[in-house]
């Protein structure tokens, strides 16, 4: 009873709180990073250097008016944000923050597959949001968003096959342990896969340069144009939770998770003083910063360019990567 229910429940509550707090501060960080990239100061009013903005914003969103348009499908309109948020949060269940059982909620033997499946349920939230709104911009945006998400999902799934070939396991903990056994981060063995997954991650989370679903010059607010108040916040939360979980998984698969740099070099053993979860958090933080940096730097793709990259560039490279990895693995 204690082992099967209470302890996992405690871990889940702690993790959920950590995610929520991370998201609020990540929004602040994003505003700051983009402001600095544009020679502005960003939020400065609330608290020292605007730090308390992260606490004030959620309170404001809870107090905001929540509108359901008259033409909207009431049931689906409320269901969509929940359907978008829950998979984004549940994906964290298989993300280990350390090798010890204390640091993960569940280490299932199909962890990576579970992660891919659960994150793709989020597409239903987007489609339903656009459909239930019964308004033109959200409908167009949700069609675009779902076409984009499923296109890049193929490329990402195919790319991950070559990572699994290298590790020989689907368990997240297993993949990091395989990197320890091989003595090298898979980012060095699979650089092509790493680049493909990074591009795919940008597209899967609707980030610049692939933020077509929210191209405000064409589609006003994207698929959540009709949403306001708390239901809008749930979409927002889902989006940022997705960015964090994808950063975490990229760090686990390609950057050794909680391993120190060069885990096979004895001379660097003094780095083990720093606990594993700090290494992992540092790596996740770097990826989050990379996402923001890209957003501040790059312009947006056109929709046909986006689809061309997904279908005609990423998929052939991913397939070639699988073939090369397989051949190298058998011959060497």
């Amino acid at each position: 009873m204690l082992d099967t229910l209470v302890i996992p429940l405690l871990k889940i509550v702690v993790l959920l709180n950590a995610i929520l707090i991370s998201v609020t501060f990540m929004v602040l960080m994003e505003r700051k990073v983009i402001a600095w990239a544009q020679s502005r100061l960003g939020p400065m009013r609330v608290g020292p250097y605007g730090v308390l903005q992260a606490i004030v914003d959620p309170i404001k969103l809870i107090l905001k008016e929540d509108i359901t348009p008259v033409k909207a499908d009431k049931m689906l309109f409320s269901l969509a944000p929940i359907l978008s948020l829950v998979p984004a949060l549940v994906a964290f269940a298989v993300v280990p923050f350390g090798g010890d059982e204390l640091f993960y909620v569940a280490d299932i033997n199909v962890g990576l597959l579970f992660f891919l499946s659960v994150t793709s349920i989020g597409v239903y939230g987007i489609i339903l949001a656009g459909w239930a709104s019964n308004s033109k911009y959200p409908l167009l945006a949700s069609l675009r968003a779902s076409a984009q998400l499923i296109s890049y999902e193929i490329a990402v799934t195919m790319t991950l096959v070559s990572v699994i070939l290298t590790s020989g396991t689907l368990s997240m903990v297993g993949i990091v342990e395989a990197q320890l056994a091989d003595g090298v981060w898979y980012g060095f063995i699979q650089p092509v896969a790493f680049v493909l997954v990074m591009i795919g991650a940008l597209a899967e989370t609707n980030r610049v340069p692939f933020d077509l679903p929210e191209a405000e010059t064409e589609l006003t607010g994207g698929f959540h144009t009709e949403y306001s108040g708390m239901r809008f916040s749930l979409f927002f939360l889902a989006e940022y939770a997705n960015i964090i979980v994808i950063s975490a998984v990229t760090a686990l698969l390609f950057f050794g998770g909680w391993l120190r740099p060069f885990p096979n070099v004895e001379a660097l053993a003094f780095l083990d003083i720093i606990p594993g979860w700090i290494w992992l958090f540092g790596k996740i933080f770097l990826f989050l910063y990379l996402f923001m940096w890209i957003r501040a730097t790059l312009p947006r793709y056109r929709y046909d360019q986006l689809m061309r990259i997904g279908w005609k560039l990423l998929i052939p490279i991913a397939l070639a990567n699988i073939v090369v990895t397989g051949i190298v693995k058998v011959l060497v």
Partner: protein
Amino acid sequence: METFEQYVPILLFVLVATGFALFTLIVSALVSSSKYNKVKLEPYECGIEPETDARDRYSVRYYLIAMLFVIFDVETVFMFPWAVIMDELALFGLIEMLVFIFILVLGYVYAWRKGALEWV
């Protein structure tokens, strides 16, 4: 049963996450302000009154992309078990998978030549 028990925490997570989403919606509904009027509840169309229904015909391309997705994603999922036990299958598994990927590429080239991957 050993493997099934690993999924109990995940089920718990689903319940907690859903509960959190519902809880915030209910709390927000209780404390938020609400001043409705007819215009505010109209579908948003940049200030213009909507003339037609939003659920109109849309490009068939989206449907095509969805069908291609189902085909390619199912084929990709076939590679997962192979990739996990690649060490045991060795050369035999590799050749089998190369044949599989060759057939997949044939379908891909066909879709490309037919123009299914063109957007405009």
